[in-house]
């Protein structure tokens, strides 16, 4: 058995003795970033609150650096674990630096007076989150992004081995989300601080996490490395998505495709089709895309947005039956759009297809008419 740094066995959590999620068995190694994902109200916060002992666990055990979490004193836990919570705190008349300095709590004496070393650690923590410039500002007067950074600095200042964060990126704009997550990654990889957090942004979760925990309803539906979790069916199932698509490759979400009889045929390659597909989808015009190689970037998006995609195997010459199929389909369409295509030795036959399109009089070149008029 692997030697885990943080391990839960058969943990059951909930409120007032009522079990919400049971049989939580996870093992985390030191310095890993583990992210909980799942729909709203699925119990991510409940699990995090139980790990931080804000909530009493109903069953099971949690081992933390070979100690039983529930036999540890609050003080001992405080030197090992720090938190960033969703609670909106409104302290009166405290500067950002004051808030960060509270992280030194487990290390200061009876009256909590900071020593020179403590002051230094506070500065280092502020430095780590690039917040030295707002040190003297009142905590209630700063932006959401700054507030999250200050709270993270407070946690860092506590010199924990593990940091638990409950939705740290909510309310942040994209720049601040990225900034916060890169600070976390630096901490995990350089200082080997273990990070357990919940995130709403699955695209970011995929990119930052070493392991993913999917929380759905009563149990953990999946637990593993991002490569195993971020598959279309897993995500679709986890969030119960029936009104759109998830692309595991880029972690992006797509709205549902336009339904109906397609009347537009789009010819493209190497990404020229992407803006056209999106434009057509926005206007709810069903379309067909082709002929696309399966490894073409256009093909990935077309699969999600087009009614039909005529594909060919990568790096092969276009076969007769594929060509025939494209020709037939094209004929039935009212309009043919050429988004721009690169023609090389493999896809030479696309020349023929374009020729035929031109002679039919239905072809429109996007390069000439512009995307907005297509």
């Amino acid at each position, binding site marked *: 058995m692997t030697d885990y740094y943080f391990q839960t066995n058969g943990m059951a959590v909930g409120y007032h003795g009522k079990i919400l999620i049971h049989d939580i068995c996870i093992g985390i190694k030191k310095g890993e970033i583990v992210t909980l994902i799942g729909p709203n109200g699925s119990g991510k916060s409940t699990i995090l609150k139980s790990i931080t002992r804000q909530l009493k666990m109903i069953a099971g055990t949690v081992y933390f650096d070979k100690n039983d979490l529930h036999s540890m004193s609050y003080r001992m836990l405080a030197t090992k674990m720090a*938190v960033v919570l969703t609670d909106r705190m409104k*302290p009166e008349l*405290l500067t950002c630096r004051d808030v960060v300095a*509270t992280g030194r709590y487990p290390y200061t004496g009876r009256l909590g007076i900071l020593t020179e070393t403590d002051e230094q650690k506070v500065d280092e923590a502020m430095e780590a989150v690039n917040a030295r410039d707002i040190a003297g500002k009142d905590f209630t007067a700063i932006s959401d992004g700054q507030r999250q950074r200050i709270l993270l600095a407070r946690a860092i200042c506590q010199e924990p081995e593990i940091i638990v964060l409950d939705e740290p990126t909510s309310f942040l704009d994209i720049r601040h989300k990225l900034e916060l997550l890169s600070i976390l990654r630096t901490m995990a990889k350089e200082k080997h601080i273990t990070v357990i957090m919940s995130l709403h942004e699955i695209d970011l979760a995929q990119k930052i996490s070493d392991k993913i925990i999917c929380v759905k309803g009563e149990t953990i539906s999946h637990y593993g490395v991002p490569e195993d979790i971020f598959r279309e069916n897993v995500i679709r199932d986890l969030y119960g998505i029936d009104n759109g698509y998830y692309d595991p490759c880029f972690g992006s979400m797509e709205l549902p495709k336009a339904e109906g009889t397609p009347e537009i045929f789009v010819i493209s390659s190497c990404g020229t089709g992407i803006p056209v597909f999106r434009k057509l989808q926005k206007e709810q015009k069903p379309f067909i895309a082709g002929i696309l190689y399966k490894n073409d970037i256009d093909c990935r998006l077309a699969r999600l947005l087009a009614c039909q995609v005529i594909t060919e195997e990568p790096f092969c010459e276009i076969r007769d039956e594929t060509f025939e199929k494209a020709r037939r389909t094209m004929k039935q369409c009212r309009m043919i759009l050429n988004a721009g295509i690169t023609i090389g030795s493999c896809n030479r036959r696309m020349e023929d297809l374009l020729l035929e399109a031109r002679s039919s009089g239905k072809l429109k070149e996007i390069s000439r008419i512009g995307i907005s008029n297509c």
Partner: protein
Amino acid sequence: MEDKKAAAEDSLAVHSENFRRRSRYTLVFVILAAAFCVITVLNINTGGVHISVARILKILFLHEGAAAEIKIIWGIRLPRLLMAAILGGALSISGFLLQTFFSNPIAGPFVLGISSGAKMTVALAMIFFLERFSKVSSYLLILAAFVGALIATGFILLVSRRIHHMASLLVAGIMIGYICSAITEFVITFASDSDIVNLHGWSQGSFSGMSWSSVGVASIVIGISLVLAFLMSKPIGAYQLGEGYAQSMGVNIKVFRAELILLSSIFSACVTAFAGPISFVGIAVPFLVKWALNTSKPLVVIPGTFLGGAVFCMFSDLIARTVFAPTELNISTVTSVFGAPVVIYMMLRRQKAREE
């Protein structure tokens, strides 16, 4: 090189910031101490009998002077003055602890009905013991007040479990206050004549007629509680960030909350037992002190609040006793006149801050 320089500059900035803060703290404490001295002198030399400052000093430190003047100062004015100071400080600390507990600056022993709860049990105890033994000890009154304060607090806690909305909680507190006052008025109405004289002045709140033994008892109980409260300033500071954070820093929340409630109840019980319910001091003083110190750090706010409360109550008592002399005003009349506008200003400012 650059980094080192920046770090050195930073450390300098921190030091100068700390220096600036400490200077501010010192200034505020010096001003409060000066105000304390001035009001002490004013309080001793004003009244029905005017005594000059030089004679006061002689009487205080050398015990020399006219027998009547010695009696006025040592027998009446000094114990009253000290009691106003001690109880005023206690009331303000009680307010500060309750504000921390409920994380709301408008919480206080008076608005939450805790003072009225204590008032009710003290009235009951007084009538019961005066009728049977024709006297009652100060310790017993404090104990009765403490029980009353705990009953009222317990009720507030029960309500706060179900209602998280602060305004509703305050309404519940005010209602408890009314119920307890009604019961108090009821027993006073049916008490024998000799009790009524005693009770009536007291139940309106007053520092008059304090004896040295009361001063002794109050200073022991409040002194010990004050030291305990001061020693709790570290967890109080953590609690100001919220329960979750406090716990994650190593505070045992259950124990801490119980300690906080017990201490604040002792403070307000002590005040009520000796001087009756006094309004607005518990809210206005902590607010003013925090604002003057420009911090809410309990390590400086607790002593500052105690000193501030002492000054505020001595000043209020001076006014209560001299402005319409020989008629004496209720102490609450004066504290309300000065305290209520502060509370209103505070709420307006909070609203403004929320809108920004």
